[in-house]
């Protein structure tokens, strides 16, 4: 592979590493990161497919408060290099993405601990009233987060393709088959994480409705989105907690959510 591709891959990895902490532009999301790596290595379609599949798995990976989620950045970047550059299959890439996400999580926790020292260094510079020094420390910390992904990416690039192929071939068939099956199932964990954050007894009704309607294949996701938006607007119009002026009667059944559900049935 020529030098330009290598530089591009490491650059994308660096971006993904920075975004893994910033969570703004979303360069660390599989659908973006894998596609970009695929473009850099000259296998864009493989990258696109891997990105789409991994995106579904990573739907629920989110940093809430001080809790650190599995790391989408290392999972996407490293597995995309293995698939689009070293020629691993997409299903192998997905199976490898999970341990990589855990490794990335450990790395970011390490960096987030390291930055405690940077916070103290910034305190000292603040006493001197130096804006520039504080800015320098802040951006320095961001660079470390970028390197957190860029360095592993460079190492995986440097490993010889034969070594990777041999290692992949050494995996027995029952394991790759099993991992592929498991890969299809772990999407559920992502859904469960999102549900766990949002679900209240009343909202389960909408989950149930979505589940029932999903059997109708003619309704694609755009149609489902329209139905969902309509439901949300109707809910806001009619839910008693948003219509206190309309009469106190609406609140009388609000005491027991389970009761509400039973009444609705």
């Amino acid at each position, binding site marked *: 592979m020529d030098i330009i591709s290598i530089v591009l891959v490491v650059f994308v990895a660096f971006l993904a590493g920075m975004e893994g*902490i910033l*969570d*703004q*532009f979303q360069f660390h999301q599989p*659908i973006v990161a894998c*596609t970009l790596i695929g473009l850099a290595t000259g296998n864009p*379609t493989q990258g696109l497919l891997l*990105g789409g599949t991994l*995106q579904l798995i*990573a*739907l*629920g990976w*989110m940093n809430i*408060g001080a809790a650190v989620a599995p790391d989408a950045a290392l999972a996407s970047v490293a597995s995309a290099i293995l698939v689009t550059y070293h020629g691993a299959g997409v299903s192998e890439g997905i199976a490898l993405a*999970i341990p990589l996400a*855990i490794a990335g999580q450990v790395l970011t926790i390490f960096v987030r*601990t390291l930055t405690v020292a*940077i*916070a103290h260094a*910034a305190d000292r510079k*603040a006493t001197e*009233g130096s*804006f520039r020094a*504080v800015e320098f*420390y*802040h*951006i*320095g*910390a961001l660079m470390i987060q970028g390197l957190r992904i860029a360095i592993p990416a460079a190492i995986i690039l440097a490993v010889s393709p034969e070594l990777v192929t041999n290692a992949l071939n050494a995996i027995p068939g*029952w394991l790759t088959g*099993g991992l592929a*099956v*498991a*890969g*299809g199932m*772990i*999407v*559920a*964990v992502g*859904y*469960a994480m999102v549900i766990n954050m*949002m*679900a209240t007894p009343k909202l389960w009704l909408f*989950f149930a409705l*979505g*589940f*029932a*309607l*999903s059997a109708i294949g003619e309704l694609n*996701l*755009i149609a*489902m*989105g329209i139905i*969902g938006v309509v*439901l*949300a*607007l109707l*809910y*806001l119009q009619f*839910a008693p907690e948003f219509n206190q002026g309309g009469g106190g009667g609406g609140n009388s059944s609000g005491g027991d959510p389970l009761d509400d559900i039973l009444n609705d049935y």
Partner: protein
Amino acid sequence: MAEENKFKLTKRDRLSVFWRSQFLQASWNFERMQNIGWAYAMIPALKKMYTTKEDRSLALKRHLEFFNTHPYLAAPVLGVTLTLEEQKASGQEIDNAAIQGVKIGMMGPLAGVGDPIFWGTIRPVLGAFAASLALSESWLGPIIFFLAWNIIRMAFLWYSQELGYVQGGNITQNLAGGLMQKLTQGASVLGMFILGVLVPRWTSMHFPLVMSRVDVPADEMVNFGAVAEAANEGILSGDMLRGVVQEIQSGLSIAPVEVTTLQNTLDELLPGIAPLILTLVCVWLLRKKVSPITIIAGLFVLGTLGYVVGLLG
């Protein structure tokens, strides 16, 4: 006049704060979390308002205190704090505790709003939609995801920061009142509905385990033998082929043995029931404080075992 202008932020200053607020989490640390990022975002304003070393030092220290919220919902807090700093710099009595109080008072509730809206609804819905495009090899998937997300995000950052800046202290009541609550509830309804759709569609679980084999009687099966014979003898006609298609459409069996797998049985019961149960079990485990990584590892073991014994495929 010039003296007064010193304390009044221009649109340019506020744009600079907006741009920097995107790097809020760059030096996220376990001790004071987004503290340096917060100060980093405030610096363009502080630089303008305070010129002496002492003032700058005090201002920096004031903004290096603990801060943590949803990275996008920091924008309205920044807006309010800019107004407070403007008033303080122009000589009004606003002590550190007041500024600290506003920051701490807003960050908790706002994080509770931002997590379900951005991480819980918009990103999964947009991500799932983009992934479905990507899986059919459409480049629109990543492009739509990237553009839509960043347009929504940047518009939110800028306008909510401006709202905070213009409204000042009043924003706290506005946010606590109906609007934010409505937005959160509406987004959650949409999110839960779409999740209900996605769970059976995109969780792939297949049970090839054979439940029963039944021999199909000859008169309930399409007679392919006759067609093959006719073809060999060179007397195959269009009518014969048409007849075969009609027989298939009228529901005659194609294979001599009717195989019912566990999957067929489950589909008859309720399509998508296995992914549903799996998801509900995962939610239950999460509520029991089992970490997601443990659940994922468990599913890997389960999936591999299921594949080896032939239950899953």
